[in-house]
């Protein structure tokens, strides 16, 4: 995929990616972007311009909360974690995404 279309496709699903990443363990913004990159084997690169607004959006919606803490290098960083409703929302989002992907797959694999 060209970088442009990749960015478009990513924008809609970044919330989902962030929620999933945070469901594994609480971490800071940079850690989230690295983890997504790592888990997707470098296919998905999260643009900082989308990441932080997404984090703010999710926090405003009450799906994640944040708290300042120190890293292992003794630096101050803002750590995000999933809330109970965030966990619920994640489950629902994954469900609907899977349904969507399955339907898409069905259409595309028609000979």
């Amino acid at each position: 995929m060209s970088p442009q279309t990749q960015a478009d496709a990513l924008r809609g699903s970044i919330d989902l990616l962030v929620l999933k990443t945070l469901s594994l363990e609480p971490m800071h913004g940079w850690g989230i972007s690295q983890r997504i990159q790592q888990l997707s084997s470098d296919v998905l690169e999260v643009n900082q311009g989308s990441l932080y607004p997404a984090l703010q959006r999710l926090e405003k919606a009450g799906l994640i909360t944040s708290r300042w803490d120190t890293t292992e290098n003794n630096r101050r960083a803002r750590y995000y974690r999933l809330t109970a409703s965030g966990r619920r929302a994640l489950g629902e989002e994954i469900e609907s995404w899977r349904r969507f992907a399955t339907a898409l797959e069905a259409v595309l694999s028609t000979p």
Partner: protein
Amino acid sequence: MSWVEGLRARAWLLLSGRKAEARMDEEFRFHVEMEIQKRVREGTDPAEARRQAMISFGGVERHKEMMRDGRGGRWLGDFLRDVRFAIRAAAKDRGFTFMAALIIAVGVGATTAVFTLVNAVLLRPLPVPAPERLYALTESRVGAVAQSYDGTALPYARYVAYRDATGSVFSGLAAQRAVSFALRAGGQTTSVRGALTSGNYFGVLQVHPALGRFFTDDEDDAVVISNAMWRDRFGADPGVVGRTIWLDGLALPVVAVAPPGFVGTNPMQRVDLWVPIVAARRAQGLTSMASWMFLFGRLGPGVSEARADALVDAVAKRVPPNEPQSRVRGARLESMNGLFRGDARTMVGKLLAMILGAAALVLLIACANVAGMLSARGVSRRREVAIRRAIGAGRGRLIRQLLTESALLALIGGAGGVLIAEAGAGLAKAADLFGTVDVTPDLRVLGFALALTSVTAVLFGLLPALQTSRPDVVGSLKDGSWRGGTRSGTGRSVFVAGQLALAICLLVLAGLFVHSFQRASNVALGYDPDGVVVATTDLGPRGYDEARGRAFYSALEEGVRALPGVESVALAQYALLGAYSGNDMRNTESGGDERYESGVGQVRVDTAFLSTVRMPIVAGRGFTKDDVRGAPLVAIVNESLARRFWPGQRAVGKNVRTMGKEMRVVGVVRDGRYDFRAIGLPAGFALFPFAQQYAREMTLHVRLYPHTRPAEIVRGIRGVVRSLDPDVAVQDAGPLSVPASRLLEPQRLLSLFLTLFGLVGILLSGLGVFGTLSFQVAQRSREFGIRVALGAPGHSVVSSVVRRTAAVGVIGAGIGLVASAGAAAVLHRFLYGVGVVDPLTLLSATLILLAVALIASFVPVRRAMRVDPVVVLRAE
């Protein structure tokens, strides 16, 4: 719960402001640091790593901007920035700001000044606790009804009926009636204004005495004095409680001093004494109360006005009235704010509504004026607006900022307006324009001014803001000179046309009312009250039948005529300028169409009345000795009634029907002001001979020779009455006075205000014409320069501009004239002797408009004609 967490997050974001900024900075810095570290670990040179990390992160400011937008606390910061910008812009263009603010100040000032009057006359509550729970009771009747400034007067027995039937809704229903007393205290006897009240009067009002203790229901031996009287008459003597004073010869002990500022239930009739009615009754040895009282009550806790209103209405219909030929239609509760009740309140309300309407028109003219100015200035700011839009400002953002500038202008103008209103109030007080009415502005007035200012800001600011922020970026940036679009030019023309229409409408209405006032003031009083003493006696309570009553009254007349200093004596059913009784009346003239008028004042008078009060007869004759029982029933009417019933014909010889009887008109008297309805126009009035129609309560009208002391005559009258029957009460004895309130002369006030507003309006529109014309000339100066350079004569150059302005003027004036005709048709009841279309007024208004327009156009047109092409073209 996610919404709680979300709310908390939102709130924190909103309020944290600068702290959030710092945290955002820190978070981004951390991210960039980690990026750098990662690249360094991968082997990149540290400086190169930093550069790459920064690039990959993207513009920090843009991120922060997006976050800020997401924060949502944006509007507050924006607003403050707008305000600061508006203040700077206003300070930079001081001339414009001053002019606009001044015009707004005139509009807001006029309206606020009128509202101050409205506040004093209709809205100000009594100085008692919880005044909004107090209500006056007024009845609506068909047939005979007694009305006064205080509303409907009811007999005491009826008050008792109401009181006993409404215990469930009122915590107390009280009655009062203002009377004059001869007060003797400390050797001096003076006439003072007092009130006869029910025992629970002070209880219902819930005022607290400054000294002593108010009387209650079962006390009949007490009097309360006002705070002012305590200071003026008794030197603020702390021992005044317990002292005895004499009222009309009755000794009463002072039991309390009222609190300062309390002058009874009607601030316009300042009362200095309160006497329980039972005390007065005891003094005069009467066994029943025939006094007419005005009722008011305090709603019980938790009772709604609607509920009490319904109950009062039901009681009114249930209890039959004592007066013959009088049917009660119902009763209702009325607010006790302000100075008037009942019919008078309605009338005054209409009058003030008209004046307020005129002031509102002036305000509209001012708004249109400033809107035109802003629109013109908007054109010169096209470039600035275009640039801002080019770099990304949304239209809504721009409109918000422009509106903030307008709001600032409105605020400055509004403050000026309040000052103008206060100055006006001060002037009015100095000129004693309103008598005892207190017209100082209070909090309610300030609140009104503030609300008005906000509305004004939107009125004059919205359209220009919309115009100025219109998306025409490329065009505005391309052209060097600021060229205004034709659309905004049309808007400005509409503003000017609107101003002219409103102004001429105001002028025409002012002219009509001035004309009407002149006609009405020539009517004058209609009789001569100076040197007349009145005294009322009511034979009802004594149970006199007609024969005994007539004997009493003729003996009374004889006795009073014999008093020294008396020139003539007459009897009338009501004192002039007092309460009146109005009935329905029809004319019955075979062959003509039947006319009908309700509320025609009717007074039974004796043969000496017209000459005693010097009421001139303009047609026919007065009553004579031949108009007696058994002779054909006759009546005398006044000019207005005659004119309305038989337009263009002789009234003498025609018939009228009222109260089930038919009478022949034998005379017409000049229009005058017979009753307190001086507020309206001369109402219909009819007189009947006492000899033919008996009434139990009659008022002596005694004309004195010059230098006779009224107090002595009053004493003499009392003596005569006492000698005839010591149990008959003499009420309201004293000189026939014209209370200050009537000096309000509402018609005069109305014409004064309308004329003032009309002139201000026309001046403002002239200013508008001048401004718009100057602007157009300046805009097209380049074009003029070219045409002149090509050889066109001076006057042809401006012809297009002049034509356009003239067209706008004609359209505006036309609309205004039509509107004024419509308004006059609606208000024609208030116009006396003036038609809806009055050629003189229309002509003068149009001429004034023309003159103002010409003067306003003179300077700009001359400037246009004198355009120097060299100067203009070089300035490009």
